[in-house]
Structure formats: C-alpha cells, structure tokens
C-alpha cells in the first residue's frame, strides 16, 4: 500500500508507525490461529479489524497485548520491538491499551479510582492519597475524551457510552498511544455511537491510533481510515474505505464458498407445531416464525442481533411479548418452568453454567427434567429410583453415552458425553419444540457428528426443532430452513440447498443477494 495515501500523520514525510505486526504465527493444538499475519497502525488513524468468529482477531489482539506468545513473528509497539513474546506489562509501558467489550471497569469504584487503577493514585505522603490531585488529573482526562460528568461518580451509575469513554480515559492515563477497542459499540445506542466516534476522531487528531474491532459494517465505513480483513488466521487484505463497498467487504469477510457435502434427505414435514407471531423483546423487533412437525429451523444472526435472543425469549429466560402457540395452544413464556410446561425444551449454549450438575450422577442428570414422572404420589413424592434408573439407562444407551456407570458423577464425563446426557434429559421429556442453542459447542468431532444425527432424529420423531449455533456451517449441516435475523428483525430466509455458509453469513451481514 502506498504510504502517502494513508490518512495518518507524517513525521519527516514518513508515517509515524505506532504498531507493526510482522509474520505473526500462533499455533494451538490442531489449529493454526494466526498464519503469517501482518498488521500495522499509523498515528492518528482508526484502523478497523474485521473477521468472522474464529478468524483470529482475538488471537491477534492477545498477541499484541502480550496475553499470549507467538510461535514466530514480531510485534513492534511505538519504539519497542518485541520478538515472539512480551509481557502485558511491557505492552502497557510501550503505549498499548486494550478496551474490552466487557469487564473493563470496576463497577463499584468511582471514575477517579477506575481511571487511575493501573497507574496508581497520586500520594500526599506515605500511603495517603492526594484526592484533590487525583480528581484534577482525572477531570483533565475526562475533558480530553469529552465526558462531562463528575469524576466522583460511581461507574455503575454511568451509561454504556460513558463507561466506554471512561475506559478510554483510563487508557490515556496510562499514556497509551495505541488503543484497541474490542467491539465497543455493541451495547451502545446509535446516538451514543455518534458521540464515541466523534471523540475517537478528535483523539486521533491528537496522534492516538485506534484499532477498532467490530461486526457492524456500517460503522466501519463511517469511522475507519483503513480496513483490514482476516480470515482463517490470515490477512485477506487492507483497504481504504473508498476501495470497498458493503457487498465487496462482505465477500472478503466470508470468502469463497466452502465446499461441503451434506447428505440432505428429503424430509416430510407435517402440520405446524410452533407458530410465533410478533415476538418482541429488548432486542427482537417483531419476529414471525412457523416450524412444522419434523422440521429443523435454523435461526441465524450475528452475536446480539437476534438469534440467541429468540431462544431466550421462547424459553422464558427474558421477558417478551407476542403470540406463541404450540400445536395451536397459546404458550405461556413467563419463566422456564412455564415454557417447559407449554412444551418447550432447551439445550442451552453454556453447558457447564446452565445444564450440567457436576456432582450429581449421570442418572440424576438425565432424569432431572422428568423427576415428576417417577414419584409415587403427589404428597410424599417418594422417588421411584429403579424406574428412573431404567429410564436413564435406556436413554443413555440410545444416545451412546460413554460412562463407566450411571452413578458416575457428571463432572468426570467428556464434553461430548455430557452434552448427550443433556439432550437425553429433554428427550425423556418428549417436548413438542426443541430449542437447541449451539448444541455442539466444546464437544469433540465424533460427538459432533453424532449430535447432528440426534437433531435429525428428534425432528423425524415428530417434534419441531429450532436450532442456532455460533458455527455457521452447522446451519448447512442440520437445518431444513434458515431464518436470518439482523438488528432484531427477520432479514431473509434460506431453504434446502440454498443454505450455505456463504449465504448465511452474507445475509447476517446484511447483504441480500448471495
């Protein structure tokens, strides 16, 4: 790329390089996360870093920030050149600061304490803090980021855009010249994004460089001076915004069609099982869905744009409005318990936090949602252990769960076998609608293919399946039909052979024609 065309500031006619990554390679077991990646940042520019989930963006940021070592390659931050490894402390002192989407600030502390958290509060003498000096210092920094609030305010009282500005002030307090913003706009309203961008632009004019990570392509064209796209750990290219339009950017992000052979069987679908009309929540803006008997419906979107939110709303995890019917009967979605009674089952995304009871046995975990089927009477509720064990045994055998015994604590099973138990838990329930949220996350390859089979079997036995996943190729693998959401609305629909990784991804990014 021609250095003269960059919008960054020039020192003696050369661009003032703040960050240079050359030939970065990072191998994880069985996978190359970074493959000779190159990246650079010039003083005064906003450089957008784009890529699908798993493209290697976060690994690159970790490598820059010193959170992870490289196998080979080098990172140069301002004037400090590092080879394969450096510590986070070295990165900070060289002038780097990373502002993460979440978990930046200590919510219960004041702005002053947060901003000066990494640099330390100024002291009077001994251990005593000079509160006034601290306040004045932070007031100055807040002024620099254009935030007009009292430095004494507690961070938890602030809105998300104010928190973002406080995070940036904190980076400035540490004399950062390179600020990495990891999806800073996800929690922001459009007007707040405008404020953030205006301040970024102003700070850039002072010589700060921003690496801006986002999924929202519209924002990229508004703020970025340069755009770098990563895919499969590799650099796909770096462009000026004028060289790209929305569609060509999506093409770069998604890449050429991934060949995938899916033995797609002709499915016979029956009558409608689930019908959703006008489903609304804080994210969803009126979703209509219909799923028929024997059908696997995929719901796809970028993170936070609707797909996981549909699952949460249908299972009563988040408040929602709209009409939901199962086999014609209105379903109450006030709580998970009510949703289950209406006929829903959920295999949640976070298996360990939301599904597994680690210290209970495999049998107890399998029968957890149907303990009511095994009680003697409604008063004493003695548990018919033998019947429950028999049910757990036949279910775990059917799903080919590998476990030493049914009494083995769930915690000792592998991820794949745990997930089979969770699926079995809901199969025992014989639900009408199965909500499967990333059912193959953190399971091994073999278990994955088995789980794809179970998804089909569930549908073939007459239930409706609503499926979503963080891995896009799974839609092509298991779904009969995919509804793609964007910004909480239905953007488009793909059926049968049209469901490809490219098509789903392009639609998620808001590109209509595949």
């Amino acid at each position, binding site marked *: 790329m021609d250095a003269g065309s960059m919008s960054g500031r020039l020192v003696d006619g050369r661009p003032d390089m703040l960050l240079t990554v050359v030939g970065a390679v990072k191998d994880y077991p069985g996978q190359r996360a970074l493959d000779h990646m190159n990246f650079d940042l010039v003083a005064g520019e906003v450089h957008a870093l784009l890529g699908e989930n798993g493209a290697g963006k976060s690994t690159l940021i970790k490598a820059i920030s010193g959170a992870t070592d490289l196998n080979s390659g080098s990172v140069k931050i301002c004037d400090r050149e590092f080879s394969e490894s450096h510590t986070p402390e070295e990165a900070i002192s060289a002038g780097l600061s990373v502002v*993460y989407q979440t978990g930046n600030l200590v919510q219960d502390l004041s702005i002053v304490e947060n901003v000066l958290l990494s640099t330390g509060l100024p002291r009077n003498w001994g251990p005593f803090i000079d509160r006034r000096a601290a306040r004045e210092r932070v007031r100055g920094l807040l002024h620099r980021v254009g935030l007009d609030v009292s430095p004494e305010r507690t961070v938890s009282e602030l809105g998300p855009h104010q928190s973002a500005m406080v995070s940036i002030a904190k980076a400035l307090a540490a004399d950062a010249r390179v600020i990495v913003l990891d999806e800073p706009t996800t929690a922001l309203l459009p007007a707040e994004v405008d404020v953030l961008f205006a301040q970024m632009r102003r700070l850039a004019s002072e010589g700060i460089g921003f690496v801006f990570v986002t999924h929202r392509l519209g924002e990229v064209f508004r703020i970025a001076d340069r755009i770098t796209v990563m895919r499969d750990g590799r650099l796909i290219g770096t462009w000026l915004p004028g060289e790209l339009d929305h569609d060509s950017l999506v093409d770069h992000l998604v890449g050429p069609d991934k060949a995938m052979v899916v033995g797609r069987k002709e499915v016979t679908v029956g009558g409608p099982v689930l019908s959703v009309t006008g489903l609304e929540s804080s994210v969803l803006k009126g979703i209509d869905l219909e799923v028929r008997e024997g059908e696997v419906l995929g719901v796809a979107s970028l993170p936070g744009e609707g797909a996981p939110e549909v699952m949460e709303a249908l299972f009563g995890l988040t408040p929602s409005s709209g009409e939901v019917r199962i086999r014609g009967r209105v379903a109450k979605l006030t709580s998970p318990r009510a949703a289950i009674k209406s006929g829903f089952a959920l295999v949640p995304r976070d298996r360990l936090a939301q599904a*597994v*009871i680690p210290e*209970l046995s495999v049998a107890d975990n399998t029968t957890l949602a149907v303990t009511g089927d095994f009680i003697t009477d409604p008063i004493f509720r003695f548990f018919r252990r033998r019947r429950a064990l028999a049910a757990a045994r036949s279910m775990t055998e059917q799903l080919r769960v590998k476990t030493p015994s049914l009494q083995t604590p769930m915690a*000792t099973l592998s991820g794949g076998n745990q997930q089979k138990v969770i699926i079995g838990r809901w199969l025992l329930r014989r639900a009408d609608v199965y909500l499967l949220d990333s059912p193959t996350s953190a399971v091994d390859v073999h278990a994955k293919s088995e789980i794809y089979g179970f998804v089909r079997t569930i549908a073939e036995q007459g239930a409706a399946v609503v499926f979503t996943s963080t891995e896009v190729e799974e839609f092509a693998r298991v779904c009969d039909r995919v509804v793609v959401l964007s910004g909480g609305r239905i953007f488009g629909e793909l059926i049968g052979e049209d469901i490809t990784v490219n098509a789903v991804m392009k639609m998620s990014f808001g590109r209509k024609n595949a």
Partner: protein
Amino acid sequence: MPNRAATTPSEVTSTESTSSRRPSKRGGFVGWASRFGTIASLLLFVIVFSVLKPDIFPTSLNFFNILNQVSILGIIALGLTLPLVQGLFDLSIGAMATLGGFIATLWLSDGTISNTILAIGLVIVVSLIVGVVSGSIVSYGGISAFITTLAIGSVLNGAVLGISKSQTVLSGIPNSFLILGQGTIGPVPAPVLVMAVLALLLWVFLTFTQIGRNMYAIGGNAEAARLSGIAVKRYPLIALAISAGTASLAGMAVAANLAVGRPQGVGDTYLLDAFAACFIGAATLRPGRFHIGGTVIGVLLIGVINNGLSVLGVATFWQYIVRGVLLLIAVLGAGFVLVRKR
C-alpha cells in the same frame, strides 16, 4: 507462563479467566482419606480413649451418656443439613432453639395451653412459619440466606427477651413435657430417640423423595435446575422451615431436660458446633456433599472427643482446639469448594 494470561494491558480484569467447575479427582491415600478420614478418626478416637480409660470410656453407660450429650446438637445439625445441601447458611437456628424452648415452657406453665402435645405442636408450627418467612425473603427478596437468617435470628432473640421480660420460667412446667428431655425408653434417653427418628426421617426425605433429590440438584447448579423446570424458589422455604422446626424441637428438649425455660443463651452454644458437625459430615464418604449420614458421623465425632477428653481429665480448652483442627483437616480433605469460596 500460565500467569501471563491473567492480565492484559491496562486491564486488571480479564474475560478469559473462566474456570471450569470440574472437581479434582483424587486417588491414593488422599482420596481414601477424604472419603473415610472422618470415620477412621472416629474409630481411632474411640480406640484411643478405650485403651486409655478402659474402665470408664467403653461402657454402655458412657455410650448412652455420649449419645445423650450430643442429642441436642444432633437434632439441630440434622435440620441444618437441609439448607446446607442447597448452599444456604441458616444462622437463625440458635435463636430459634432458644425461642422454641422458652415459649413452650411459658405456654405450659402459665396455662395458656394445658395439653403438652398441643403446645409442642404449636411451637413447631410457629417455627415452621418463621422458616417460611426467612425462605421467602431469600427466594423472593433476593437476599442471601446468610444475611437473612442473621437478621431473623436477631429478631427472634429480641422477641424472646421481650416476651419473657428477661424472666426465666422456673416452675409450673408439667411433667408430661419434661419427658421430652428426661424420659427414657429402656436404656435410651428420649432426646436420643428423637435424634434417631429425625435422622431416619430426614435421610428418607433427602434420599428417597423428589423434593430431597431436587435440593441436591439446586445445590449443585441452581441455574441448571431452574432451566430443567424445577421451581427453585420454593426450596429455600422448605429447607429453612425444616431447619427452624428441628431447632425449636431441640430447644424444647433442652428446656425439658433442665426443667427451665431460659429466654437467652440456650441455642447459641449449639450454633457453631452444628455447622462444624455438618461440614465434618460433608467430608465423609461423598466429599463435598452434605448428607444425613455424614452429619451423624460429625455429631458423634464431636461427642466422642468432648466426652473422651473430659473422661481423661484433659482441660476443656483442648476440646475446642482438637475440634477446630479436626474441622479444618476434614474440610481441606474434602476439597471444599463451597466453604473456601465464602
């Protein structure tokens, strides 16, 4: 460099420090000790005391003596096991015991209620209501059981002092009530019988009923239990009601045993020992899991140590020290995530 991942530039918190909930599997001696250590040390103490004091310690008289001494503690600890299964700390059991013992003797002595059975039943109903109130505050008010029961305990202590005007009930307690603390059936003292029956009932409840099993599910992962359709908010009400009920029963047994209704200082002596017994119990057979059998072992262990050391003529302070050390060893051996976290 494993510690490198914990900090990233200018960030103290890290998004990637997600810890797995997988408990460590142990084998060999440590694994054996964490399962059977408490039972082994119970046997060891019995043998040592029997060898040192063969004429006093290993006698049937002393055997029932030990059981009698621990029966009150046992009744309280057995009830406390239920909230602990769900990870709820009930600190109101001491005050509940004091209240139960006092109002039972008060009602019977001043003639409010003449029927002993009715009085005992009514006290238990009152305590169940208190437990349900505590449980409701925990479930629907979103306040931790630790704080809720601390506050409720204080309220109960105040209430009993107010009702009594700080006067101890010394006379007018009917003999039919005193049986609860002083009676015997054959060689078995009544409080021991109460403890045994209670242990059996609660064991059956926790092990063989849907509610008991759901309590373990909630204690293991409340969110997973909720997403499986268990009405998780009802269970603190049940558990805290039962622990309050057993505490008041224990308080009545104390009052019956001493034939006085004291308005303060009755239950507090048992509070910490009851927790100790439960935690020693949770280090037994199934490390990290509270269960009735374990609590019984914990109670017996405390009883044997106290009795044995005093039979040997060892100064009282050693009892506290030995108990404390034993509790620490037991909890360490069980790899107790629950207690270490708090």
